[in-house]
């Protein structure tokens, strides 16, 4: 895991839970002097970490700023590869843009870019994505799977399944549902958006940049007027503030597991999970593209993740790209 000295120190404290750690022990473990440790702790206090000194035992961490930084995420991490390199920012224009650059420079499989705030977050077709400061999870996961380009679109559905499973394992007060292909809704309102970009040649995927935006700790008043009726957050639905770093780590666990499962055994088992958690299949829907509007019954997805719509005239139409509206909730 690539952590800075500062992050290593925080991680040690987070993992120690309530146990105090002596300065000498920290210095020995991390291979730096006690003076250096002391300086790091001073700096951390300025960033909002609070330590108390317990006589003859050492330091104890008693308050952690509400951030999704590398130390905090890695203290929860149980993965083999994903999240082992974390690029964390207080503010960034777009995690996706930096991911492009890092991927071209050879970033490892599972590298993540995460920020407290995005000033230029983007959605489909250059629509803007509202990324409030300190409230959400705004991140890009760089995945470099051994796949052919035409096998890559399924990964966007796998990302949605991973987030749903992570939410189900951590929270109990709501049921997340997937709207084709990979929006996540709670009680019919959007909570998660995923946009994936692929770097590929004809016969090889260089990298997939899975951009994930999660409304995590937003209160209803945090959303702009135009999103009031259509957006929600994990905290609103769970009825309490959530630990964003813990959710990130849980998502990375599932994403790593299901990506590997897909590469080894194909889409079948994950497709099953997708269908089970879908709020699209079985519903009457309207699928809009710029060219046309298709209405009918969503009857399933193919092994490629393509949506199948049964039209009123009995034809079955395959849809690769569209905005979906569910008509009978």
């Amino acid at each position, binding site marked *: 895991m690539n952590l800075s000295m500062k992050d290593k120190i925080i991680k040690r404290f987070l993992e120690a839970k309530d146990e105090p750690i002596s300065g000498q022990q920290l210095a020995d473990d991390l291979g730096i002097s006690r003076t250096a440790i002391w300086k790091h702790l001073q700096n951390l206090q300025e960033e909002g970490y609070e330590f108390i000194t317990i006589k003859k035992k050492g330091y104890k961490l008693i308050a952690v700023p509400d951030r999704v930084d590398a130390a905090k995420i890695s203290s929860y991490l149980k993965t083999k590869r994903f999240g082992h390199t974390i690029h964390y920012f207080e503010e960034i224009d777009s995690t996706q843009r930096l991911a492009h650059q890092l991927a071209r420079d050879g970033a490892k499989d599972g590298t993540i870019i995460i920020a407290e705030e995005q000033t230029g977050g983007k959605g489909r077709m*250059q629509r803007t994505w509202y990324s409030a400061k300190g409230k959400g999870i705004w991140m890009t996961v760089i995945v470099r799977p051994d796949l052919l380009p035409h096998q890559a679109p399924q990964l966007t*559905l796998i990302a949605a399944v991973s987030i749903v499973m992570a939410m189900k394992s951590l929270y109990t007060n709501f049921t997340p549902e997937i709207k084709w292909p990979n929006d996540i809704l709670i009680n019919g309102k959007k909570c998660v958006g995923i*946009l994936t970009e692929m*770097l590929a040649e*004809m016969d090889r995927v260089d990298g997939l940049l899975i951009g994930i935006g999660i409304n995590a700790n937003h209160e209803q008043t945090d959303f702009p007027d135009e999103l009031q009726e259509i957006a929600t957050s994990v905290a609103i639905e769970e009825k309490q503030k959530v630990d964003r770093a813990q959710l990130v780590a849980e998502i990375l666990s599932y994403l790593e597991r299901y990506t590997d499962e897909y590469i080894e055994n194909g889409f079948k088992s994950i497709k099953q999970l997708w269908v089970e958690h879908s709020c699209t299949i*079985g519903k009457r829907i309207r699928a809009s593209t710029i060219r046309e509007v298709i209405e009918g019954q969503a009857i*399933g997805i193919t092994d490629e993740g393509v949506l199948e719509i049964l039209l009123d005239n*009995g034809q079955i139409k*395959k849809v*690769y790209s569209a905005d979906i509206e569910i008509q009978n909730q």
Partner: protein
Amino acid sequence: MFKVQELREIIKLVDSSSLDEFLYEVDGAKIKLKKNQGVVTEVVAPKVQTVVQQAQPQVQAQPKEEVKVEEVKPQAESAAPAASTSEAKPVNLDDPTLHKITSPMVGTFYAAPSPDSPPYVKVGDKVEPDTIVCIVEAMKLFNEIEAEVKGEIVEVLVKNEQLVEFGQPLFLVKPTE
């Protein structure tokens, strides 16, 4: 009553089998499939309609009514090289001196980054190997396609928002080196 998913499965199985005709009856619901040139399916709903599970799609077939099920394959509008004389101008697909930029996957072709933007490239534009010429998207996976060669765009073979097939030529480029 059959669930739509079950119907789909049955149709798929019969479709890919060597059977010409298939009859299946369970709990008063009956499905009869016949294969001709196309796939014509007859669904006879039971007289007494049983309650289907909530949230399951219903095939509201009236008794004796025929429901046509037809697989609509994604229509790539100018997929076959031979048939792609769409704009009534000569197509140089067979010209070995021209480089073809092809689609690495099935998906929607976008000539521009957004509906309001100008296209990435147009005929006559000079491109470098890493110039982005279009996006192909499926299931919200966006793939920026690069020119791969240095040269000049001589033809755009597909229309904006058209569905393209794997390996389908999208642009012809006249290499300059």
